[in-house]
């Protein structure tokens, strides 16, 4: 590497905000990655779970905050806790079951027992620790944990602003709109696709707000759609929609205007592709009004809401990234449906999810391929910048921040602006 390689103290060289240029080093440097884990993932709110993944008292789910393994759990009173999955004695993980239900966590090594809220309850043969051993100082390491509309976030930063403030009113409004795809039922996680991609996590962060790639990368998916659906996904040619910076690194990309608010346009005719489903629901006895609401909800919301740093509400599913190493990121595509809703509607949602998402979807493998190609490409041309300046020329003020063309890189600029703010702390 040349001597004029940007140093981390020179954040302007890593992200040139005015010209919207990202340095190649941003995807390549392991030391920078370590610093990101400290200054971003250990400092901000990180998405860890959806409440439906651990619905009952005593239900839990393993998750990650940056590189740290955590347990998200509901205690006996239903309160949600998130704590590091590491015994306070000599560090063994206290749980290796991905999801389940329990009354406590017992370390397998020497048997220390922890309550659902992480407090240390039992130490076998405690005499050798003496009388002043203070159990209350040896609970599992807790994170701050807050939820908004079912989405659970955790933070290592005790001083951080409340989750609702971090999200802000615009993001909260979009989350509420997104959750309308429960079709009158609570939103429930139905399963997830998981795949690792040899890429830096920011390549994924960019992609969730990138409409520009859609007609190119997803042509082969589009070719398997009926005409009306293909038309719906043709947002780039139509030039409808926009990308808007919502502050704190968050952004929204509106792609299908008629699906922005699923409670509106309920009188619109049911699309042909859902005619069979609608009939099935009628046959099950659902009144026409509810049939329309459910069917409309099945296709998902008309936008991607991207939250910095690790979760995106993407049309009809949640997309979660976990940074593993400078050149490896784990991706989860979480399928959602209607809790207590008609099985036929949830089946339709599952089949739509399988159609595009995951290791065998008609969309995700092509995404994964181009993300990897970015990581492979950045091995060459150290000195060349990565351009995220698309749409700067015709950006206008939106409701919350700059608003650009549907294919603009406005959302990436929002994320990199936040990246820089956090890295300069």
């Amino acid at each position, binding site marked *: 590497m040349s001597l004029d390689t940007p140093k981390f103290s020179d954040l302007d060289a890593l992200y040139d905000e005015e010209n919207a240029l990202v340095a190649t080093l941003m995807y390549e440097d392991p030391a920078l990655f370590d610093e990101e884990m400290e200054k971003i993932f250990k400092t901000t709110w990180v998405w860890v779970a959806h409440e439906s993944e651990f619905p009952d008292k005593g239900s839990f789910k393993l998750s990650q905050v940056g590189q740290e393994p955590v347990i998200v759990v509901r205690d006996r009173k239903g309160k949600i806790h998130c704590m590091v999955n590491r015994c306070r004695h000599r560090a063994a993980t206290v749980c290796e079951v991905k999801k389940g239900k329990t009354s406590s966590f017992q370390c397998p090594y020497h048997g220390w027992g922890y309550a659902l809220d992480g407090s240390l309850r039992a130490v076998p043969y405690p005499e050798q620790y003496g009388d002043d051993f203070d159990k209350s100082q040896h609970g599992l390491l807790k994170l701050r944990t807050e939820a908004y509309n079912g989405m659970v976030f955790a933070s290592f930063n005790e001083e951080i602003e409340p989750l609702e403030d971090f999200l802000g009113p615009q993001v909260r409004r979009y989350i509420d709109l997104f959750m309308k795809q429960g079709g009158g039922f609570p939103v429930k996680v139905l399963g997830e696709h998981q795949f690792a991609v040899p890429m830096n996590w920011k390549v994924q962060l960019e992609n969730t707000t990138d409409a520009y790639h859609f007609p190119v990368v997803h042509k082969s998916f589009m070719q398997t759609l009926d005409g009306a659906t293909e038309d719906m996904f043709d947002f780039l040619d139509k030039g409808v929609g926009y990308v808007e910076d919502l502050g704190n690194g968050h952004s929204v990309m509106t792609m299908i205007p008629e699906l922005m608010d699923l409670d509106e346009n309920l009188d619109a005719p049911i699309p042909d592709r859902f005619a069979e489903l609608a009939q099935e629901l009628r046959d099950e006895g659902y009144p026409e009004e509810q049939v329309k609401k459910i069917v409309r909800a099945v296709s998902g919301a008309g936008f991607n809401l991207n939250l910095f740093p690790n979760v995106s509400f993407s049309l009809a599913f949640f997309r979660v990234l976990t940074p593993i190493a400078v050149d490896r990121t784990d991706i989860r595509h979480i399928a959602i449906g209607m809790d207590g809703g008609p099985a036929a509607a949830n089946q339709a949602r599952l089949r739509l999810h399988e159609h595009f998402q995951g290791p065998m979807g008609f969309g995700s*493998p092509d995404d994964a391929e181009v993300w990897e190609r970015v990581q492979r490409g950045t091995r060459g041309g150290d000195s060349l910048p990565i351009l995220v300046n698309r749409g700067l020329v015709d950006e206008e003020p939106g409701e919350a921040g700059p608003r650009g063309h549907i294919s603009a890189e406005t959302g990436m600029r929002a994320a990199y602006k936040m990246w820089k703010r956090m890295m300069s702390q």
Partner: protein
Amino acid sequence: MTEMSKIDSRALLADVTEFIWAEGAMLDAKDYDAWLDLWTGDGLYILPIGEGEDYANQLNLCYDNAKMRRDRIGRFQRGFSISSAPPADTVRTLSRFRIEAAGGDLIEVSCAEHLIEDKFGRQRTWAGNAFYTLKVADDGFKLHRKIVRLLNSDGMLNSFSYLF
């Protein structure tokens, strides 16, 4: 299911093994048109996630009826999918064949599948249990149901540009 004599079952095992090996060779050779012809019209090709067996009501890696199989193959063949143009090369080994049940015109067979893929100079290894329901036809067998359970189906995978 009817009892089979030892000799019958040995002959049958040889026949189904030959059929499944031929199918595996088609998939490695990406001879997909021939593969599509192996199926019954209402056949299902499924790669589940985890242990569940209620495939219709759970999230799978794929849950393909005839139309989805055709679309999937079309996507592989048309050249617009960057992940499958070119796809990874594969070599698979199918072994430990067992006839689980046989009755009427249906035969249930299970076997072990090991597959190695190669792309970008990198090899990845996958292992799974494969379950076939074959339908006896005039000219041999048809695939009626094929379920491949990857050992790590509920873990972190990579994307697949081929079939198991």
